[in-house]
């Protein structure tokens, strides 16, 4: 058996080596070389001098959250590089310390502690799920380090963590309200509601949608759930088909990885009515997986992120992302990560220092900041940006703008 074992060792080493050198592998595959531009030793291609401004960027780059967090981390890295190429902030380059927290809240808390204590970061950005924001948030709060979450959308977060926490996206209650109002007006008073019970985002979104929709006078004719990881929806579909009368539309709250699969299976079964969803639908997977079946799908999101968008900022972002990572932004979280770094850089610039309180104050003073995902407004009262919500329709195999709205009434967080 001995030689076999050595063969095994050799094989493992080979695989590891292959993985290490694989191009396009790790979330960071920069075309210039594997060293992250943020790492202290890699010479930043920037005219900016002075000690770098360190920003902690914990994300779940492996594990269950990875497919959502990796695009966000990529977007953040892209923004940091652009800012550094343009001269940095306060004459100093930004150093983004991207760390993997392994979809584990304990690791998230440890990593953030380490970033604050050892790496002396001036601010923290990251995470797309409340579990991790709430595990790491109190640590930032206690240390007086501003923390902007890239994609966690629960509107309760600032109340739960404290005044150092900011959200980059709008709250789920806002987009759910717009979804409900838009669909109520456009499609009618009856809806089918399906949501993923295994994830917080989908649960919260479905609850706010239901609240606003019934408040408007709508009826949920059938409510059903599934579990993250379920890939077969035929039982749910049979239940829909057994309804005496089909609802005016179908609200399906799903994670980006599942939307394509769900839409495809619903359409295949002959359910052709409008399907409405949240910003989880904002992924190329919807079109790639569902194909023509994705027609007549509507979803609320931050902005229309297409390469031919009328918004120049969006076009620039999509092009830069594609050039750097070889793929279109995988999900809207990429744009949110990108915006988060820009808005933070703007705050540091305004604060004129890297002091936590000063950055926090500067963030609160940000008004009408033009970002890829809409216009960002913060205030001392609201650390959740007041943004308009974009409704997108899939038409002719493309994402097209259906409406840009502000909700008439937002469900209480």
């Amino acid at each position, binding site marked *: 058996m001995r030689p076999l074992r050595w063969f095994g060792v050799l094989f493992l080493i080979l695989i590891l080596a292959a993985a290490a050198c694989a191009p396009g592998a790790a979330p960071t595959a920069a075309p210039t070389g594997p060293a992250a531009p943020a790492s202290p030793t890699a010479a930043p291609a920037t005219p900016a001098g002075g000690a770098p401004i360190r920003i902690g960027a914990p994300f779940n780059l*492996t594990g269950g959250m990875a497919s959502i967090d990796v695009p966000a981390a990529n977007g953040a890295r892209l923004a940091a590089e652009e800012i550094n190429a343009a001269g940095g902030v306060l004459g100093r380059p930004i150093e983004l310390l991207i760390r993997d927290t392994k979809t584990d809240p304990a690791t998230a808390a440890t990593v953030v502690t380490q970033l604050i204590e050892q790496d002396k970061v001036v601010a923290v950005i990251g995470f797309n799920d409340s579990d991790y924001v709430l595990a790491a948030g109190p640590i930032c709060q206690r240390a007086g380090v501003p923390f902007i979450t890239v994609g966690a959308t629960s509107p309760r977060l600032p109340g739960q963590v404290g005044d150092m926490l900011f959200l980059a996206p709008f709250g789920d209650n806002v987009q759910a309200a717009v979804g409900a109002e838009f669909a109520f007006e456009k499609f009618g008073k009856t809806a089918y509601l399906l949501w993923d019970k295994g994830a917080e985002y989908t649960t919260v979104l479905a609850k706010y949608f239901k609240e606003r929709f019934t408040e408007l006078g709508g009826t949920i004719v059938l409510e059903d759930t599934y*579990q993250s990881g379920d890939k*077969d929806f035929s039982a749910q579909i049979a239940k829909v088909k057994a309804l005496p009368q089909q609802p005016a539309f179908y609200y399906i709250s799903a994670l980006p990885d599942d939307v394509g699969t769900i839409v495809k299976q619903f359409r*295949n*079964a002959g359910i052709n009515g409008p399907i409405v969803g949240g910003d989880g639908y904002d992924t190329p997977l919807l079109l790639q997986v569902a194909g023509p079946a994705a027609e007549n799908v509507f979803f609320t999101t931050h902005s229309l992120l297409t390469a031919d968008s009328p918004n120049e900022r969006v076009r620039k972002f999509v092009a830069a992302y594609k050039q750097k990572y070889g793929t279109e932004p995988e999900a809207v979280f990429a744009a949110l990560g990108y915006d988060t770094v820009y808005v933070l850089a703007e705050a540091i610039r305004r604060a004129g220092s890297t002091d936590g309180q000063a950055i926090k104050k500067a963030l609160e003073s940000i008004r009408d900041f033009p970002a890829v995902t809409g216009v960002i407004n913060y205030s001392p009262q609201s650390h959740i940006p007041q943004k308009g919500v974009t409704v997108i329709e899939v038409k002719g195999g493309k994402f097209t703008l259906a409406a840009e709205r502000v909700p008439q009434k937002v469900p209480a967080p």
Partner: protein
Amino acid sequence: MHAVGSLEFWIQQMINALGLGSQYALMAVGLAMVFAVMRLINFAHGTVMMGGAYIGLLLLQRGLPFPLVAAGTILGAAALGVLMERIAYRPIRGAPDVALFLNSFAVAVFLENIAVLLFSPRSRPFPMPALLTQVFHPWGDLFIPSIHLWAFGGALLALGGLAFFVTRTRIGLAMRAAAENPTAAQLMGIEVGKVTLLAFAIGSAMAGLAVLFWVAHIGTVQPGMGFEPVLKAFVACVIGGFGTIPGAVLGGYLLGALEIFLQGLLPSAVVGYRDALVYAVLIFLLLVRPGGVLGHGEAERI
């Protein structure tokens, strides 16, 4: 339109259950074969599926025609299974069951993270030919996704072939002998090592076939995609009685039916408990028929 509880609803759910059950059966058979020859609950079985899917995707991106992609997926999965046996399991053959099981868990974690490094964790679309994705509407409101038919037919063919192989061919009989009593088999001149390798190859090829249908059904591949299937396969095996091929097949269909009908019939307030009920049934079965539905009576107890 038909109402819940109408004949049409039942027929529809029956079709769904058969389709899903066929997929589970294909996944479970590989697991059962490996268990039979080396008493290993191969948790990395799902990772083999994932690996096969990525191999298929790479071939597809090279522009190969679909039959070649399918063959590549199946062969790739088989090759991965063989490699796995050679590298990770052969050195520890004869170790306690638990050590083997944990080792397979480690292999799964290892391969999944390697896949994350190689392919990034994002889901990738896996476009399938229309042959696999079209849907038939035979009459009324009934619909039959062709993937259900494919899975059913595929399961039937593969399992039939397997049945022929293990009951009619020399090497198949040797495999069964090795599963029954490795020591005696060895004494009779059966090369247990070779037989084990073959079991891995065939079981993994089945996983490759299963993943083809699975991917056609869901449309994407992702490094973590093997986790749910292996859990389902595992449950199917336990339900049917571990280590027997007919048991795995029956378990797969029973699990598919259980899931579909619980999801279809539970009221929305409690439908979230579906998986809890599935596993409660599993534990109950373990208590009353530890040998599975097909098992022969009482298993060892203390």
